[in-house]
């Protein structure tokens, strides 16, 4: 069995009648970094909260490493570390006390060396005797991560990990995620910063209005749904796209200096070579040319746009 988390037929209807999740089916592979993308209110946090045991599901089953989250909740939950979106810590506890508390809560024997290592890795060691209330926002975020890692989880959920986080912490966090992955920890992060998913994830799931609308390997996704664009910088501005080139999907910039050709890079005949020949025939000269793949962000926006 390669999937570490298996979610099948999970729905969530809140008491208000709001359907937060409609039939979610999702498998998370062991050891991967999975990015769950979606706009605000799409159901990302609800889904995570169900897997972690914070919210009761309305129907469906979830297993973590084969353990049902209902029947066998102890085994399931002890494998999971959660870093929630909000900075919610007991403000009057010291860093050291609260991280050791988390370890105890998850049933792990005290291990000072391990907790020290976690704190050092997160640059929190100097602050170990400070109360949480005295920490800066970034330090509090580090503390939340330390608490989640204190009990050596095999699966780590990061809910919007870099919302409102400075560059240094973001880089530290990504380095940490990579290290954890090397140790075999499975990481699921939700985000609406697409660059994050683009930089980190092995696979991407897109959730919108309580439904998973797509799950793909990041590379395949970008290949399949990505489009390629070729920009040509012209030697002399054009007033309009020449007639002989009208069958290409060309766009002329407002100042007439740049021609953009959008094409499907999966196609057998992307038409790049013929376009260049036809440009020459039409007497259009260019100084420079570059091509770029569309980003995950553009793919994502297009996907959501297609949704009814």
């Amino acid at each position, binding site marked *: 069995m390669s999937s570490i988390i298996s979610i099948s037929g999970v729905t969530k209807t*809140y008491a208000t009648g709001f359907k937060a999740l409609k039939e979610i089916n999702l498998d998370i592979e062991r050891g991967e970094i999975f990015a769950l993308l979606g706009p605000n209110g799409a159901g990302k946090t609800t889904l995570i909260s169900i897997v972690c045991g*914070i919210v009761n599901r309305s129907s469906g089953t979830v297993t973590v490493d084969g353990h049902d989250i209902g029947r066998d909740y102890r085994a399931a939950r002890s494998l999971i570390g*959660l870093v929630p979106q909000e900075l919610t810590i007991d403000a009057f506890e010291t860093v050291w006390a609260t991280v050791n508390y988390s370890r105890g809560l998850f*049933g792990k024997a005290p291990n000072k060396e391990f907790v020290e290592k976690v704190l050092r890795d997160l640059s929190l060691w100097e602050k170990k005797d400070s109360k949480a209330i005295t920490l800066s926002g970034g330090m509090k975020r580090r503390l939340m991560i330390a608490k989640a890692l204190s009990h050596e989880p095999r699966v780590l959920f990061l809910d919007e990990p870099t919302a409102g986080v400075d560059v240094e912490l973001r880089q530290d966090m990504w380095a940490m995620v990579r290290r954890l992955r090397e140790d075999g920890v499975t990481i699921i992060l939700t985000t609406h910063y697409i660059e994050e998913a683009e930089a980190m994830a092995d696979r991407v799931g897109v959730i919108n209005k309580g439904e998973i609308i797509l799950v793909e390997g990041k590379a395949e996704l970008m290949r399949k749904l990505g489009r390629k664009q070729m920009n040509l910088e012209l030697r002399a501005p054009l007033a309009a796209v020449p007639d002989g080139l009208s069958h290409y999907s060309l766009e002329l910039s407002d100042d007439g200096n740049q021609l953009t050709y959008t094409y499907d890079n999966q196609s057998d005949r992307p038409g790049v070579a013929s376009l260049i020949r036809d440009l020459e025939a039409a007497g259009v000269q260019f100084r420079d040319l570059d091509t770029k793949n569309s980003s995950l962000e553009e793919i994502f926006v297009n996907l959501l746009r297609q949704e009814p």
Partner: protein
Amino acid sequence: MNLRAAPNFRAIWAIYRVEMARAFRTVLQSIISPVISTSLYFVVFGSAIGSRITEIDGIAYGAFIVPGLMMLSLLTQSISNASFAIYFPKFVGSIYELLSAPVSYLEIIIAYVGGAATKSVMLGLIILATAALFVPLRIEHPFWMIAFLVLTAVTFSLFGFIIGIWAKTFEQLQLVPLLIVTPLTFLGGSFYSIHMLPGIWKTITLFNPVVYLISGFRWSFYGKADVSVGVSLGMTVMFLAICIAIVAWIFKTGYRLRN
């Protein structure tokens, strides 16, 4: 049963320790302030007014009010300790960690109620020691004294835990202790014997559960009671059972914890 399904004693210990640490962090609020208020009661009721009452049921008035005063603090502190302990994480959101941890509801209860009850019992004993400075005390049934002390602390910590889960605002958190528990305790015979009340009021008072607690507790000190000790014990245990039933329901439905 596999190892993973075994009780999570480490979690109970972790929560319990945090609860106890909070008490020592807020020594002024948890320990010194009840001592001061108890001393004030002695000055006002024991000395000023008590000097005119002299004795009730053959017990010096100052000594007579000691069990009632202990109960007064025990009840209010058990409720406020336990209700705050569970309300606060709910309020700041840090309860996510408790809910996502491999702990059973029973373990959560044991840890929180155990912590709150421990603090209350310690407080009760501190009040007792303070009282001993003012009046001569005797405890005829020490075993039952401790039994009533612990039973009441546990019962009302459990009651406080329920309030803490139910409360959505700080106002609600204060509401039940302020509007129900304090009046019931004052009217429950802390400062008088219910035999001193005129006919109809004596009957009405018997619907006040606190009467049984104080009466039983006072019996363990002086061997004198307003109602029989068996009834006192029965009522206390019944109230405990009701609280346990409510908590069981809360946990079965996830009421206000897991929506």
